């Protein structure tokens, strides 16, 4: 099976999951030929891919064109990580004045084909599978690769983080420690890391389908003003997720 790994606006953290596979990477590489992966190899071929893993959000005009080319060359396109699925941390800018923001960081004039918005892949092309997380976990990556070998659909959670949190026998940080936790509206998959380390989830796996945001804002009123929770969501790397952008 021919695999391509591509990168758009991102921190490289999701691609790292391939390296994190370590020994398994070598075993799996007997079944998957990595044809294109700039970070891993100096020999890259762009032909047809059975699976394209795409990291990063679309934030320049150039990227808009490149993602379409990747889609055309790939049978199965997997968006990996919060950037590709929801626009990433850089999509926090979608809620700000872009010109001003640009000036805060660069003195040079606006340009370079940088788009005002940072957007998920699904805004531009059909995505076959979205893998959540900032970054994705190597377990999710392994599940996807193995599922291809087994010829099955990958088993990635759609349930909220709280379920995973309880499976890990954590104490709820909202109730016990009065911390704001986005777990109830965030998709599981990380292993409920933040609550396991004594803090509330900041939503890096992105919203569940149809999150009851209103109920969360209302219910957390005693902990934090609604506007601040919304800000937290805007900074949670998934601010431009289609399941949540309209509510922010």
């Amino acid at each position, binding site marked *: 099976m021919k695999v391509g790994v591509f990168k758009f606006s991102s921190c490289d953290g999701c691609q790292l999951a391939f390296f994190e596979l370590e020994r398994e990477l070598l*075993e799996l590489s007997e079944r998957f030929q990595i044809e294109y992966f700039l970070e891993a190899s100096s020999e890259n071929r762009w032909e047809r891919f059975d699976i394209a893993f795409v990291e990063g959000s679309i934030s320049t005009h150039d990227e808009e064109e490149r993602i379409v080319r990747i889609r055309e060359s790939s049978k199965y396109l997997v968006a990996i990580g919060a950037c590709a699925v929801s626009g990433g941390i850089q999509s926090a800018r979608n809620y700000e004045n872009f010109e001003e923001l640009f000036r805060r960081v660069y003195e040079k004039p606006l340009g370079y084909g940088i788009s005002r918005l940072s957007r998920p892949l699904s805004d531009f092309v059909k995505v076959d599978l979205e893998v959540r997380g900032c970054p994705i976990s190597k377990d999710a990556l392994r*599940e996807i690769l*193995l*599922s291809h*070998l*087994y010829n099955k659909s990958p*088993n990635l959670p*759609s*349930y*909220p983080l*709280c*379920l995973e949190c*309880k*499976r*890990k*026998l954590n*104490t*709820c940080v*909202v*109730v*016990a*420690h009065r911390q704001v*936790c986005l*777990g*109830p*509206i965030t998709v599981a998959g990380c292993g409920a890391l933040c609550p396991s380390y*004594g803090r509330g989830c900041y939503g890096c796996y992105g919203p*569940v*389908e149809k999150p*009851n945001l*209103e*109920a*969360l804002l*209302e*219910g*957390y009123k005693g902990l934090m003003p609604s506007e601040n929770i919304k800000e937290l969501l805007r900074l949670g790397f998934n601010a431009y997720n289609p399941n949540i952008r309209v509510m922010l």
Partner: protein
Amino acid sequence: MEVKGEDEGSNYLIDLDSLVELFGILSQRYRVWAPKVKDGVIRYMPTSSFGELALGYRNIELPGYYELKKEEGYFTYTHPVNSLKELLHPPELPLMRVVKQSSELLFDYTMPNGERLCLFDVRACDLWALEVLDRVFIKNNPKPDPYYKSLRDNLFTVGVNCSYATSTCFCTTMGTGPEVRGGYDLLLTELKEGFLLQVGSEEGREVIGPLKKRRAEERHLQEKENIIKRTEGMMQKDFHRQEARERLYGRMDETYWEPVGKRCLACTNCTQVCPTCFCFDMVEKNGLSESYRVRAWDSCFSPSFATLHRFNLRQSIHSRYRQWLMHKFAYWVDQFGTYGCVGCGRCITWCPVGIDVRQEVRRIVQA
């Protein structure tokens, strides 16, 4: 629930030293799980010495709120935050390992280990919860579950009568407490003079054989009654459970459920902390040539719980809430001859947005 013999000879009074000694005997005979303070809450955890116990704490619980305070005395709290479901129906339990060898499959069924386990300090609600789970997995099940049973058969339980109820407790409403009425091997009640120790099984009798103790007198038993009465008085009767059950069947219309659907996050917490919620998923954990079939906690609030042809039959949150509440307070009785709720109040405390199931039952029933 079977009430094991409570004849006169089974009531003793012991002092603190004997209690410590009892704990010592237990830890020698069994692996002991007992309430300890961790992360600011009281939890059942493996415990090796008396000093680790969460004695002299008080849990203040409200809908969506938990706090621990220091308190004069010993068994001054209610039940721990985690339930015994954790032990008998673990969050993730591998049922088998399957290895593929050419076209044949080899199955390796791994039963959980049958180590003797002592649960120290179990309250009435949680002992009832064990009975409820027993009915689900073995007693009222035509195909009893050997995984559950192999864990269950190895339990030795030391019950404790509650001398305090927190605001989320409603065992009186559900008829499960606060008095421990059975299902224990040993039972403790903290009295002014010491601890009333009652024996509920032969094994219990054997355990306390070497213990320094004296016969309890009538006034001790009377004090116990008083304590239980006092504890009962700390709880309000929330609703008449049988009446509620009957009326709930007439309250299936969504209009009754929509208000709580608006407030509920469908986060699954209530089902996970509940000592009796048993729903699970079967998960295939695959490797290159082997696969584990794992039984993992699931919840009727999960977005894919009732999926038929890729479509969840319960799309709306209010319909999931209805499924849950109806199951606990109505269906369960048809299924297993007991309520699915023991009134421990965990779902109330641990709901991140503080939905109170008692209030919902009342609202819906009275509507």
